[in-house]
């Protein structure tokens, strides 16, 4: 499950309107949708919030990835339904699932469409110090490398008779040790070599660093920002004055 789920957060280069938005706009999008998801627990309202997110997924050509990430969470959803229904109500469990779907969708849209280096630039524009922002984007860069390394280690250990999926839960956890130790050692070595090469390329040699790429707020960013904020305010109003809405929106499952 886990790897498939991670796929939903890995940047892919595409030319769509969503990709071309400023990262800060997309961060706002993810944040507002997440807050709205937490604010409400009525199934229909959550469902409409969820529906209203769909155009973004379509516009960003992310449908397949998105389906994958949702599918990756089926197990979690099942657990949620079972436990929530046992300890509270079926309706609660459905709204919980909708909430999680909204939050996961909105953040996966962010990570799928924001280039890690642009992520760094937006962190910088939010006054995060360069060193921290840079190490953030560096860790994104090395995720695939370390994934390949992990696969190599698995293959190497397998060729020595190692079996990962054997025995019960505890012995499976123990089975991870021959994987983790070489992986950690390799990663530490790698980190040292990366640091060495950063220094050899003048990293941190001046405070007046320049940037080849820049991010900028364009008209469509402003437009979307305004719409999002209006949407958010509308959400707050509805929350404060639920009488404004028709009754059926508050419908629940009888169980």
């Amino acid at each position, binding site marked *: 499950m886990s790897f498939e789920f991670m796929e939903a957060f890995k940047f892919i280069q595409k030319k769509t309107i969503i990709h071309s938005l400023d990262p800060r706009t997309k961060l706002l999008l993810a944040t507002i949708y997440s807050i709205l998801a937490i604010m409400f627990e009525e199934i229909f309202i959550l469902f409409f919030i969820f529906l209203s997110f769909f155009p973004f997924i379509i516009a960003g050509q992310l449908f397949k990835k998105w389906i994958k990430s949702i599918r990756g969470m089926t197990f979690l959803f099942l657990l949620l339904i079972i436990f929530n229904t046992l300890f509270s109500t079926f309706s609660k469990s459905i709204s919980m699932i909708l909430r999680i779907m909204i939050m996961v969708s909105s953040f996966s849209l962010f990570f799928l469409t924001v280039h890690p280096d642009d992520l760094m630039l937006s962190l910088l524009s939010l006054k995060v110090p360069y060193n921290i922002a840079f190490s953030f984007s560096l860790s994104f860069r090395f995720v695939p490398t370390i994934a390949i390394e992990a696969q190599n280690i698995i293959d190497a250990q397998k060729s020595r008779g190692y079996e990962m999926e054997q025995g019960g839960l505890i012995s499976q956890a123990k089975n991870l040790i021959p994987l983790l130790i070489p992986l950690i050692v390799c990663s530490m070595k790698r980190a040292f*070599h990366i*640091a060495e090469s*950063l220094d050899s390329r*003048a990293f*941190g040699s*001046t405070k007046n660093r320049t940037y*080849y790429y820049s991010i900028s707020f364009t008209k469509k960013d402003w437009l979307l920002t305004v719409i999002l904020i209006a949407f958010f305010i509308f959400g707050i109003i509805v929350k404060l004055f639920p009488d404004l809405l028709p009754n059926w929106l508050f419908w629940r499952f009888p169980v």
Partner: protein
Amino acid sequence: MNLIKFEDFSFKYDQAQDFVLKDIKLNIESGKFILLCGITGSGKTSLVRAMNGLIPQFYHGEIKGDVFVKGKNTKNVPTSTLSRDVGLVFQNPENQLIAMNVEREIAFGPENIGIPWDEMDSRIKECIKITDIEHLRKKAPFEISGGEQQRVAIASILALQPEIIIFDEPTSLLDPKSAIQILNLLKKILLEKKISTIIVIEHRLDIVLPLADEVILIDKGRIIEHGEAHYVINGEKFLNSGVNIPKCVSVFQKLMNQNIFIGKLPISIEETKNLINSIK
């Protein structure tokens, strides 16, 4: 002018038993294509680490003597500052590529030293052209082959425009044809005076020797020979050092041992051709 100067420099890694560099006296002058050779473990990589301050700033250990880069003592000036004078392309390209695409990779060095956008852009274009990687421009480092990574690593150092560039086995992941291409390219950069000195560590002597002005031969941490290429190649020490001696040299050396040939050993195909013609 002396670009790099070693004054009786010795170094021992922290965990090691023995000194890995011993009593190094060395002057690196400008305008040279220098080949640094020696067998595996002889200390080539360690020697170049001492040229941009990685030894002793990154690799700690016991030091004797000093190294100066354009008059700056490498003990006191940080590597990140020295990197403007000395560019080092590492043996393993994988760990030196840190950006998500090739273009950003090349931009990284110039960004770090605060180059204005217009100049940065023209440097990037130039370096991409020199190393012939236009088609990789938007690719991520993990999407391209080892040889392509090496080209990108070279481009990313060129973009810093250091006076001295050191290549630690720049062609180890390349096929012979691309290796020749890359090394000739380095020579061309030097001749066009884009860089004033190039130091190359390379095991394929048959390809580099024809390009080299100077050869440094290192063995067990000592520089046992250093001088003009022909001078070093013709010396006993070179022939007995265990390095990968090119065919043209070894053939004529055998002839020499059998007293069939007397004279200077040829270091390139061109010289071999001339030599054979002159014998006829």
